[in-house]
């Protein structure tokens, strides 16, 4: 930071949606931070989107409501937007632009870091392979999260993804190591009650002291949502790569982020892509998701769990579709299970963690983890087929083994999938439950597990 910059321009050519077009600008730079001052002396932040021909297009984060061409000034600050970071950010609550929201002063900064982050050198990336325990059985057992992974949760409007997000943030931990662990939680465009729930939930569970919260509520200007995930990831990168912590970043709801992006794109009169989202949506999302990872020679890691609600539960919608191309698997929240009152209502047959195989097994979780997981997937899939069959021929038409699969499906949903929001299960407890489910089948139906593990863990009822 220097005393340079700070020229204020008063010739506003146009105000269009969230954009202010400033005339006769000489020295503005792309992405430069701008302070827009209203007639009444109110200051709003923005950034330069385009410069050229003596004009600068400024995107105002806090919206342009109340701004007029005469009397509005734009001060080009001479630097890009930066987030002050230090270890002191842990336990703090910030708004969507990284300003304190907990009544405490700005943190004393150790560094000021560009919120756009530095691209990770692909050659320096380390393959993620260490287990993160979320305490949620279905995730730990069947779609294990590993440090440095980006594993999104695809949900739908009104479902319990926010409860799940808060539970993961409260309970997540790294096992088998003394390394520090932190959670960075970014809420984008959530209701005030939800934001309050996240804050209280972390505070009451004692997890706030190892967490940083960024809360952009639904009544905050939509454009702020472009910044929220970036400031959150900047803090996460600092904690991970400067302080050596393992950081889990939970971002909810990425759909609100994409909609803010669409709003800006429309205001800039860009050619719209699918469903009106800009053609660069994939590129833009990747600039966020690709900030997860581990680096060679650095102790910490950034793991991301972005949550997005699929409009009309449509998994082919551009947001989940493009997210799925970038991330390493997905956890899908199912509407049917949600309607049955199952929590967390995760549809395991549509979910997958692509990096799970490297984070489980002997030395990470337990030697039988991979095989028991395959067997549970297989058995539950068969249970679903039997359910469909029972719907046609009735239970009386089912064979004895079909009935066992039917029973297994019910037990899976009632005892394994269903979990209280404050129930934190260890990986051992999760694996024991998985064996309890598989033990509902006769031994000859267990085809995906080595005999030695069957002998060790199978307990016939």
């Amino acid at each position, binding site marked *: *930071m220097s005393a340079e910059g700070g020229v204020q321009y008063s010739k506003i050519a146009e105000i269009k949606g969230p954009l202010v077009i400033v005339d*006769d600008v000489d020295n503005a730079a792309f992405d430069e931070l701008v302070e827009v001052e209203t007639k009444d002396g109110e200051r709003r932040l923005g950034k330069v989107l385009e410069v050229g021909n003596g004009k600068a297009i400024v995107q105002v984060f806090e919206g342009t409501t109340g701004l007029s061409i005469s009397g509005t000034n734009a001060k080009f600050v001479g630097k890009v937007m930066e987030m002050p970071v230090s270890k002191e950010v842990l336990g703090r609550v910030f708004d969507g632009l990284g300003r304190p929201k907990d009544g405490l002063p700005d943190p*004393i900064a150790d560094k000021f870091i560009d919120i756009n982050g530095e691209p990770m050198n692909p050659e320096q990336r380390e393959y993620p392979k260490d287990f993160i325990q979320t305490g949620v059985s279905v995730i730990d057992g069947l779609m294990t999260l590993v440090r440095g992974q980006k594993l999104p949760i695809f949900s739908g409007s009104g479902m319990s993804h926010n409860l799940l997000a808060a539970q993961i943030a409260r309970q997540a931990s790294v096992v088998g190591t003394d390394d520090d662990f932190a959670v960075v939680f970014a809420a984008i465009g959530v209701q005030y009650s939800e934001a309050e729930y996240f804050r209280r939930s972390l*505070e009451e*569970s004692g997890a*706030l002291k190892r967490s940083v919260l960024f809360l952009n509520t639904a009544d905050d200007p939509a454009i702020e949502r472009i910044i929220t995930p970036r400031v959150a990831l900047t803090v996460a990168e600092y904690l991970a790569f400067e302080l050596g912590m393992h950081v889990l970043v939970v971002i909810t709801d990425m759909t609100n982020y994409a909609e803010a992006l669409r709003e800006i794109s429309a205001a800039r009169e860009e050619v719209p892509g699918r469903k009106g989202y800009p053609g660069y949506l994939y590129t833009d999302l990747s600039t966020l998701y690709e900030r997860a990872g581990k680096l060679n020679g650095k102790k910490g890691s950034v793991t991301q769990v972005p949550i997005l609600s699929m409009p009309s539960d449509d998994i082919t919608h551009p947001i989940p579709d493009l997210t799925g191309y970038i991330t390493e698997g997905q956890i899908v929240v199912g509407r049917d299970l949600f309607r049955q009152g199952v929590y967390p209502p995760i549809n395991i047959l549509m979910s997958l963690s692509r990096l799970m195989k490297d984070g489980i097994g002997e030395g990470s979780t337990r030697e039988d983890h991979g095989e028991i997981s395959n067997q549970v997937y297989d058995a539950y899939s068969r249970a679903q087929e039997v359910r469909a069959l029972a719907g046609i021929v009735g239970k009386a038409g089912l064979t004895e083994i079909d009935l066992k699969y039917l029973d297994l499906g019910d037990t899976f949903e009632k005892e394994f999938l269903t979990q209280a929001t404050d129930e934190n299960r260890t990986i051992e407890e999760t694996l024991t439950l998985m064996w309890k489910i598989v033990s509902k089948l006769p031994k000859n139906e267990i085809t995906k597990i080595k005999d030695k593990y069957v002998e060790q863990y199978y307990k016939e009822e």
Partner: protein
Amino acid sequence: MNERHPLANSALEQTIDKILNQTEKEISSNIESALTDSYQTLDDSVPKLEQEYDKIVADGKKEADKIEKQIMGSSDIEARNKHLMALEEAVDKVFTQALDQIANTDRSGDYSNLIKSLLDESTKILGTTEVVVFTNAKDKDAVQSALPNYPGSELSSETIDCLGGVKIQSKDGTMTFDNTIDARIERLKPLIRKEIAAKFGVSN
């Protein structure tokens, strides 16, 4: 009253004894089997009880850990927040005193060099010397004497409220650069806070 035959009496007694013995044996055997059964039941319930006991202890331990984490977490946060507030108060005091000192700085001697360097910097950033210069009442003389070095510049008759320094505006009024001491402090405030905190022994 009829007297019974002695043999009949003895047979009756024997029968009674026999029945009594048989009943006694049956009762004893029943008692023994009940005892064995109850021991068996007791033995069988021990592992279940142990399991139940272990579960209650484990659940209790989990709950205790949870409560401990809650208490530790909130007290840590509370202590940290108090520390932050105290530090901020101290930093603010230092700031206030420093601003007072700056406001009362002697305007003679090197001060005119400061004004000159502020004017140099400002005209360079705006890219023109065709500017109107604003300053406070205390600095007016120092600014006025430096202006002949900037052709086309003029001092505004209006004064501004600031600690010192200059604010310049292009003559068409479209560009302004605030190079007052207040604005400079504001720009560098995060760094200055860090320096002050370091003096108090707080480093990150």
